[in-house]
């Protein structure tokens, strides 16, 4: 009851939660069921407009756009989740070590970190992909690496703040080793900060993946991807604007849901 009351007083959290849950549900349903086969072509339905049979219309091969959007969402979610996972795990490791121990290692790593951080992540990912080659796996790796600096930066400053507090001193005096102090005592205290940056990171990953796929170096056909659908839809913008509209709107709503959720959570 109390949680419900809190929700009704916080419209961002409310709308964000509904949007996010809806998007996640559609994605989950997409794992087991899509209205049509995502690769089934039906040339008689070529560029058909939205109708009851095809809610989002059909693409230039007569494939059902809704089904492909669902598959694209799945790919986007998986890539974004793995990206954030890589970014968080390594970001926490680097950030915690630097923030806790300080010293020369901190100076050097943070210097590199600052340079990487000021470099746009999508460009960083582009460079890494140019080294590794295209494909979904390499996109995850490239984006994951590109996301490490931003997490490392946040974790470092939080750990630094915590390390100066009394409870850390007490833990050390009670005989806790460095590893135990960092992982058992300090890290749980920075989870709230980390959580909101994970959500923002997820959004950035969704946007970056869409951008890379739009450029043709992300998810490769025949796998559906929202970014790729947008680039394909551009040639039919005049005759079938909905072909671009629905994949694009899906990206916007996904990002919006998480953004509102993060916004609502930071508002107490």
């Amino acid at each position: 009851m109390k949680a419900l009351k809190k929700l009704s007083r916080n419209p961002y959290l409310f709308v964000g939660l509904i949007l996010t849950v809806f998007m996640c549900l559609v994605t989950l349903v997409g794992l087991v069921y899509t209205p049509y086969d995502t690769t089934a072509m039906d040339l008689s339905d070529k560029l058909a407009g939205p109708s009851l049979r095809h809610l989002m219309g059909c693409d230039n091969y007569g494939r059902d756009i809704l089904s492909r959007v669902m598959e694209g969402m799945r790919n986007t979610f998986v890539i974004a989740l793995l990206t954030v996972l890589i970014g968080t795990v390594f970001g926490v490791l680097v950030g915690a070590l630097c923030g806790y121990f300080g010293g020369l290692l901190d100076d050097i790593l943070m210097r590199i970190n600052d340079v990487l951080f000021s470099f746009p992540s999508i460009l960083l990912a582009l460079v890494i992909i140019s080294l590794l080659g295209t494909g979904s796996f390499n996109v995850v790796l490239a984006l994951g690496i590109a996301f490490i600096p931003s997490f490392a930066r946040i974790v470092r400053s939080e750990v630094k703040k915590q390390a100066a507090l009394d409870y850390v001193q007490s833990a050390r005096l009670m005989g806790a080793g460095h590893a135990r102090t960092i992982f058992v005592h300090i890290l749980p205290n920075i989870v709230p900060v980390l959580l909101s940056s994970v959500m923002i990171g997820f959004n950035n990953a969704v946007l970056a993946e869409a951008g890379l796929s739009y450029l043709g170096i992300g998810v490769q056909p025949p796998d559906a991807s929202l970014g790729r659908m947008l680039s394909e839809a551009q040639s039919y913008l005049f005759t079938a604007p909905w072909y671009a509209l629905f994949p694009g709107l899906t990206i916007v709503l996904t990002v919006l849901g998480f953004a509102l959720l993060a916004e609502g959570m930071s508002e107490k």
Partner: protein
Amino acid sequence: MKYFFRKLISMLLTLLAVSFIVFAAFAVIPGDAAVSRLGSNATEESVAALRAEMGLDRPFLERYLSWLGDCVKGDFGTSISYGMPVGQLILDKLPITLTMTVLSLILTVGLSVPIALLMCKYARSRFDRSMYGLNQFVMSIPAFFLGILLTWFFGMVLKWFRPGGYVSYKKDFGAFLGYLLLPAIAIAIPKCAMSVKLLRSAVLTEADKEYVRTAYSRGMSTMEVLYRHVLKNALIPLITFWGMTVADMIAGSIVVEQVFNIPGLGRILLTSISRRDYPVVEGIILLIAVVVLLVNFLVDILYRKVDPRLEDQG
């Protein structure tokens, strides 16, 4: 002045580190540049000959230093696929990317300041709240999707411009600017929404302070107080944000270029990546790094101009 030189040296050192990372990254890639140039069925002798010609048989550090020396002199090597010097190739396209970035920055700053102040004037009113919601929505739109929507609306519904009808800046600068306006808007709008959000909260924090009350008590109007007193202080955190945004805008322009079919740096970068034309990729990355570091440097200097209190802290 001392601060200026310290920052300058730190920037140059960082640039040195970046150049090393870039060179090292492209030196360890799987696949030999000589082999990829000759094809996989080349004889061992011809590969070895080409390796010697390209200088690939020399030690790593030596190769780095000679490459660095060439870069400083403005020689970034020769593009394998375009068959022309990388420096010239980039210099040709640089004005396009820079113009787009500058245009979007002007739009972002020019639009976000009045909008944010207007929201602050009517803070917590229905207008403020609906703008805040709209802002959140706009922030979630990727620039390239916005570009597609703008193309569709202005190019196909209203027919105000011809999609794909890019005009080179060498031919007609006015038409060039006109064509770049929509891409710049597509890049600027999401960034503008972010600045509005940041600026609004910065202004509202400042507005609670005593000097603001003093200004009001002297009979100034709300807009006067906001523009003449509050804005100056509220802009300090925004300068950092706009500095970082420039880097994002360059990256954004590379994607949005494709939406509007503009033959700029982005197209060269993408073509070079798919053809594994590494000298070009290295050159572009290095160039963007220089721009990013230069902007950071300017932000640091500007920061102290806006906030003289920092002068005392050395």
